[in-house]
């Protein structure tokens, strides 16, 4: 009965060589994932894979489609799920740090450069998405434009700052982009507020002016405090920051 069709004997690596018969069929009925990469302690590449089903993996390296065997009790060779870092830590996103940095921008009169000492780009990305969201609410789809302008303006500020500071200018592009991105917070608030301000009036320009000056003030203070060589060129750097944030406010106003 079992030999109605010629089934070639399947060799399982750890289970020895089971004879063809009911043994095979029982083992074949175990729910396995269609592809399981070889998980072995001898493998040099640490591969994270997750157990699907209750079967544990085979520990020896074998043919690719060996797969886990039904009632196996073997210990998985790679990293287990519990040993991994939390996802946000692994990605380098620290929400409490982002929150602290964003709160420090809210005060236009006193900059807090200590919080911004280690630069990160996840806060700016969050602020960029919220700016795009508010622009979307205003009917303008400008995702690519804003991202491109952030990149160009941070390169511009990086060049200008380092050239002005001369020999001892040590601003690096990551920190520059981080500061420019965080100081977009006033522009985000402007775009949220401009949803309720009537179009084409001087009040709109006045509101935009206030937020642009806020962003400029914070950005200059942070730039001068975080990188050397910017002290005697405060006004020149402030003008560059002012131009950058005016450009973003143009997107919001018009």
């Amino acid at each position, binding site marked *: 009965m079992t030999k109605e069709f010629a089934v070639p004997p399947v060799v399982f690596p750890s289970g020895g060589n089971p004879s063809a018969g009911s043994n095979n069929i029982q083992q074949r009925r175990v729910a396995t994932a269609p592809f399981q990469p070889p998980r072995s302690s001898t493998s040099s590449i640490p591969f994270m894979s997750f157990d699907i089903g209750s079967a544990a993996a085979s520990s020896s390296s074998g043919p690719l489609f060996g797969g886990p065997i039904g009632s196996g009790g073997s210990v998985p060779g790679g990293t287990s799920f519990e040993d991994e870092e939390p996802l946000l830590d692994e990605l380098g996103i620290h929400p409490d740090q982002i929150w602290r940095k964003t709160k420090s921008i809210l005060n236009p009169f006193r900059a807090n450069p200590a919080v911004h000492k280690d630069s990160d780009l996840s806060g700016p990305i969050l602020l960029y998405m919220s700016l795009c969201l508010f622009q979307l609410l205003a009917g303008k789809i*400008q995702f690519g*434009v804003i991202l491109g*302008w952030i990149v160009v303006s941070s390169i*511009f500020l*990086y*060049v*200008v700052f*380092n*050239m*002005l500071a*001369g*020999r001892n*200018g*040590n*601003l*690096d*592009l990551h920190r520059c982009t981080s500061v420019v991105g965080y100081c977009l917070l006033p522009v985000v608030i402007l775009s949220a507020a401009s949803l309720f301000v009537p179009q084409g009036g001087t009040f709109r320009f006045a509101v935009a002016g206030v937020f642009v000056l806020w962003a400029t003030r914070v950005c200059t203070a942070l730039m001068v405090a975080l990188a050397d060589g910017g002290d*005697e*060129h405060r*006004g*020149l750097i402030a*003008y*560059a920051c002012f*131009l950058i944030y*005016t*450009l973003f406010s*143009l*997107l919001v*106003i*018009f």
Partner: protein
Amino acid sequence: MSTDENLGFQSGVPIPGLNPPSNQFGNAFCGAGSGLIREGLGAYGKRICGSSSQYVQSNIIKCFSDPQYYFQVNAHYVRNKLKIILFPFLHRGHWTRITEPIGGRLSYNPPINDINAPDLYIPFMTFATYLVLAGISLGLSGKFSPEALNWQFVKGMASWLFQAMLLKASLTSLGGGEAPLLDMIAYAGYTFTGLCVAVVGRITLSYAYYLIVIWTSMCSGIFLAKTIKLTLYAEARSYDVTIHNYLLLGIAFSPFPFIFCLSNPTGNWIS
């Protein structure tokens, strides 16, 4: 490395008759100031600087004198230079650049010490100001879109480079061919100040702004002519007066088409 850092302060302007030792200068360019060049060139920088090929190094020197020189500015210089650019006839002093011997060679003083020296901070900032003002002018006439502003950027860049090439070509064909390219880029960029004033005029007054255009292009033309005259007489080998005068006249009228075209921002990619 310390001697290289000392050399880094000077511009690469050679006086005719003096050949800068190219090896030393190549190192000065590579070791000098800006982290941008250090980081930006990266591996290629090491290859270029480390290569002992005289041809490569002397070509780099010919194309780009040390850009760090053009950014040694302070607020006082910027204010006074803007006054000279916008009202060149009010400038009481002389127009020559101060030279002083450093390291056995005559070189020009940096802009922080010499009001007549060109710099690159003002051109960059006025270009960006022009973009912002063009955006405002587009927005007030209802034609604002980010693509329009991007096209304005491209058009402004193209006209800046065109004007710089014009200056460089005319000086090279007449003079000794030793006018540094970055100097020409700086001089061409100074017309953006007049352009910004013209765009402000267009925003505030709608038709009287043509008078402002004529006024600012005249001022930019006078400024350019006076500076190029000095460069020409300092470096030209042949003293053919009539060609020089025609050239100076041409340069004096050259900002007019640029200012006229660029101060009318429309959303299209041409015109």
